[in-house]
């Protein structure tokens, strides 16, 4: 006999199926032919199987004007809920471009903001997959208010749970500011981010620029440094997100996941041969970084922005570390405006989420130049000093070669609170390079002397014998130990272990005033 419940169950199944189709067959097909996955497909790839619990499938939009009344927009164009990534709870929002172009109406935005509140309550990461035409114009200012609610929640969540944005389609205008307020942005090749698009720019300034030139991943990575990871397609974007999460704790009160530590670290003799004997020669510092990490596994952040500073995540004996390293083969490894900003932001992220900092130093100083000074290198460089000094996580510094002047200080020197400072025998820790120092110290003598060349060489030699070594700094206890490069991994692993319970007391305050 047919019961009421059975009939209702069938009805439920029908409604759910209809709503889960989003914009339906043709639009889904179009999504695929334009190289994109659907909102639900992206979540299916991201989350562990059968772990997605949706909230708000039945949500209805509240647009009444301009033909919106009575129009069905399934889930109001955004799929929200929670699920697991490798067994760990995450909260997700995934915009559905097949429903009204993924446009953000008020209910759409409120669903996202409510998901963020759940992430906060449960101390779990928030992942926002963006693919939206922008504000839903028919809803007017209600749509703007919705954006603002999301931004506000982004700020409330900031530093409490990791926030990751995937940009898998258009993300223009106000919409771009939610990702901007999150910790990491992963952009696909076909996606674009900008505040004002090509049409508005042409109208206002007369400049003609193609959308991908303005807001494609190359523009937003190489030029602006807005984006942290570039993915070839949606599948790769999801993989990057999963890999990134594996290094992070779920919230700021927990430690990052510990993996199997493996066997005791062994000496790696190849590390002895990477830094060239000629101090003028560059090398790729990533060769050193990857050799020190477990399995050589290093997730670099912002690979193509401010390449003179390398930042990223790795593990040592199963524990996550945040790596900051000068790249001597780019701009001599000097710190400039962009590198300072990049480094400071990364250091602050690691500190917020209990990830120890490992700094590799080979720096000739801050980059000289009129454009650097006019651009405010004083203000920007200060961010790195601030971030390192304010960081209370374990801080380990390894000086590979040059550590000159202000650059020496900025790269997590002992005085900025490094808990363990190690130097390779190739380290040169000094206020400046030997030739420049001789020029400053003996300018008058050298100008009047008649045997300029040989006297100068003698002085340079004398200066570099004295200061172009780690021994003076170690004598002053600015360096704790001088180690064989081959044993770096073992030394760092031991120090991380010893510092795992580190506490660092600071005065109570609302917040420090990082020179933004």
């Amino acid at each position, binding site marked *: 006999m047919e019961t009421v419940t059975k009939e209702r169950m069938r009805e439920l199944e029908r409604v759910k199926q209809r709503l889960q189709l989003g914009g339906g067959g043709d639009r889904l097909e179009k999504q*695929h*032919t334009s*190289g994109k*996955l659907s909102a639900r*497909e992206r979540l*299916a*790839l991201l989350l562990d199987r059968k772990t997605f619990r949706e909230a708000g499938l039945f949500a209805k939009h509240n647009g009444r004007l301009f033909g919106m009344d009575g129009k069905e927009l399934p889930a109001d164009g955004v799929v929200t809920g929670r699920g697991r990534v*490798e*067994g*760990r*709870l995450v909260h997700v929002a995934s915009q559905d471009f097949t429903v009204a172009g993924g446009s953000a109406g008020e209910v759409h935005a409120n669903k996202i903001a409510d998901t963020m509140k759940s992430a906060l309550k*449960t*101390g779990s990461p928030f992942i926002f997959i963006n693919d939206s035409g922008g504000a839903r114009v028919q809803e007017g200012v209600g749509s703007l208010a919705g954006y603002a609610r999301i931004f506000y929640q982004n700020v409330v969540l900031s530093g409490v749970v990791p926030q990751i944005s995937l940009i898998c389609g258009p993300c223009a205008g106000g919409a771009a500011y939610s990702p901007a307020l999150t910790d990491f942005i992963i952009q696909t*090749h076909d996606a674009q981010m900008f505040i004002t698009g090509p049409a508005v720019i042409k109208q206002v300034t007369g400049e003609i620029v193609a959308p991908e*030139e303005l807001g*494609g991943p*190359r523009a937003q990575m*190489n*030029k602006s440094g807005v984006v942290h990871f570039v993915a*070839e*397609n*949606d*599948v790769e974007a999801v993989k990057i997100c*999963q*890999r990134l999460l*594996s290094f992070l704790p779920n*919230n700021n*009160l*927990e*430690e990052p*996941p*510990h*993996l*199997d530590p*493996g066997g005791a*670290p*062994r000496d*790696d003799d190849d590390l002895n041969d990477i830094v060239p004997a000629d*101090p*003028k020669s*560059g090398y790729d510092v990533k060769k050193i970084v990857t*050799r020190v*990490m477990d*399995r*050589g*596994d290093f*997730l670099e952040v912002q690979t193509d922005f401010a390449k003179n500073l390398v930042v990223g995540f790795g*593990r040592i004996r*199963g524990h996550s570390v945040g790596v900051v390293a000068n790249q*001597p*083969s*780019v*701009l*001599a490894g*000097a710190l400039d405006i962009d590198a300072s900003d990049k480094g400071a932001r990364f250091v602050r992220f690691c500190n917020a989420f*209990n990830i120890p900092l490992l700094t590799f130093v080979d720096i000739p100083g801050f980059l*000289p*130049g009129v*454009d650097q000074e006019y651009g405010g290198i004083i203000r920007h460089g200060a961010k790195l000093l601030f971030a390192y000094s304010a960081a209370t996580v374990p801080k380990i510094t390894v000086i590979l070669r040059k550590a000159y002047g202000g650059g020496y200080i900025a790269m997590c020197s002992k005085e900025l609170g490094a808990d363990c400072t190690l130097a390779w025998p190739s380290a040169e820790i000094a206020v400046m390079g030997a*030739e420049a120092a001789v020029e400053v110290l003996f300018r008058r003598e050298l100008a009047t002397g008649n045997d300029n060349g040989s006297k100068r060489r003698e002085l340079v030699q004398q200066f570099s014998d004295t200061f172009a070594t780690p021994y003076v700094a170690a004598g002053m206890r600015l360096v704790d130990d001088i180690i064989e490069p081959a044993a770096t991994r073992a030394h760092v692993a031991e120090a991380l272990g010893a510092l795992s319970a580190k506490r660092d007391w600071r005065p109570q305050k609302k917040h420090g005033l990082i020179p933004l």
Partner: protein
Amino acid sequence: MADDDERATAAGTSAWARHGREDIHGSHSLSAPLARWAPELVEPEAQAPVDAASGESEPAIAIPESVLHARPPQRLPEDAVCRSPIAGLVIAVLAIKGERVTRRQPVMVIEAMKMQNNVSPEVDGVLKVVHVSPGEAVKAGQVLFELM
């Protein structure tokens, strides 16, 4: 549902939950089942970079070929023009006009800050014109070479 029960118990003892309920500060190790990221026992010399995402199981959904197809490299208007990243002295030009060069290939060496800095183009291409020669001092932003 055994799995879910375990998770619920684990969450109940996490630092997050304790902090919220009893206001206790403290750290707590979270051991998550992240086996595929675990380091294997390897000799240090065998520590070559690995594709950490390899060795995965089948994807949860069928992925259309249109999503996976390789994209052409993106171009920016300034790509063809290579400018000096730094003020310094050109000490070597490593490619000649008409030569095919790649974005990872050093085309010029500029000495600055007592360091030899390799300059590579932003994109792959053919060298159309070289504007400077060894021994020449260049400013930051000065055009060094152009690609076709």
